[in-house]
């Protein structure tokens, strides 16, 4: 495993930016900033005419590191330890589960908890627990 360092201030500030984004999206479009919901709705069946806006939001997510590199000349550390089979299985599970459960860390974790939604509280507790157990099994049971 790669050792990382506790970054309370940067993480609090970055979290506040994520919150600002969620508030701005609600103000602009009246919709929840749930990344899994936004990304999944880029695929058919299309239920409304919001494709362009969703595509633009996702493009903004992808463009963020490009903007950081242009502005500062470098990018923060990123360590992806998972190999090819793990990436594929984890990707399918993440995509399937977040859509099946109507949301992910942003939709349930940030927006749902902020709305005091019981469904989102249950969902957030469940994926936190499942993630914790999975990391424990993968790191400490082998």
């Amino acid at each position, binding site marked *: *495993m790669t050792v990382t360092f506790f970054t309370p201030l940067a993480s609090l500030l970055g*979290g506040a930016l994520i919150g600002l984004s969620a508030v701005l999206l609600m103000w602009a479009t009246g919709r929840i900033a749930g990344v899994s919901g936004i990304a999944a709705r880029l695929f058919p069946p299309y239920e409304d005419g919001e494709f362009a806006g969703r595509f633009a939001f996702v493009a903004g997510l992808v463009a963020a590191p490009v903007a950081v590199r242009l502005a500062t000349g470098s990018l923060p550390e990123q360590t992806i330890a998972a190999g090819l089979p793990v990436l594929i299985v984890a990707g399918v599970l993440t995509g399937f589960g977040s859509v099946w459960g109507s949301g*992910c860390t942003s939709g349930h974790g940030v927006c749902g908890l902020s709305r005091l939604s019981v469904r989102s509280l249950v969902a957030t507790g469940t994926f936190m627990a499942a993630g914790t157990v999975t990391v424990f099994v993968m790191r400490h049971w082998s």
Partner: protein
Amino acid sequence: MAVLIQFAIGLVFGLGLIVSGMSNPAKVLNFLDVGGIPAGTWDPSLAFVMAGAVAVTFLGFNRVLKLARPFFARRFYIPTRTDIDPRIIVGPTIFGIGWGMAGFCPGPALTALGFGSVSALIFVAAMCVGMLLARFIAHLPSVTRYVAPADPVET
């Protein structure tokens, strides 16, 4: 105009993920690793990200939802369901397992694409397959009849 604004809003979200350190799966995995608490390698950063995000969103939603309508839309689209059905347990369980395996959830995975990472590209491609599969199954007539989801991807 609305589309440009949504690009900027996505950009702010992505910057938040980078500043907070969440675009690095190693930080996420070190948070989820409770075995790291006695070992001294536990990284509590993710809890601070959530705290910052929820605090701003809680205060911001309270103000924004007092408006008559959103700036570019006719009405607010707020989830209204309160029932705890099997899907709200099963879905997050499956998602949590995937999250714990690679350290990516959907937002950071998309932002990781902009780092030029091949691993992120593979993960995102697989994630899209999973999303399509879930949407396909949710729209099957038999599932719709018996499970009766209001909207399969409603947050």
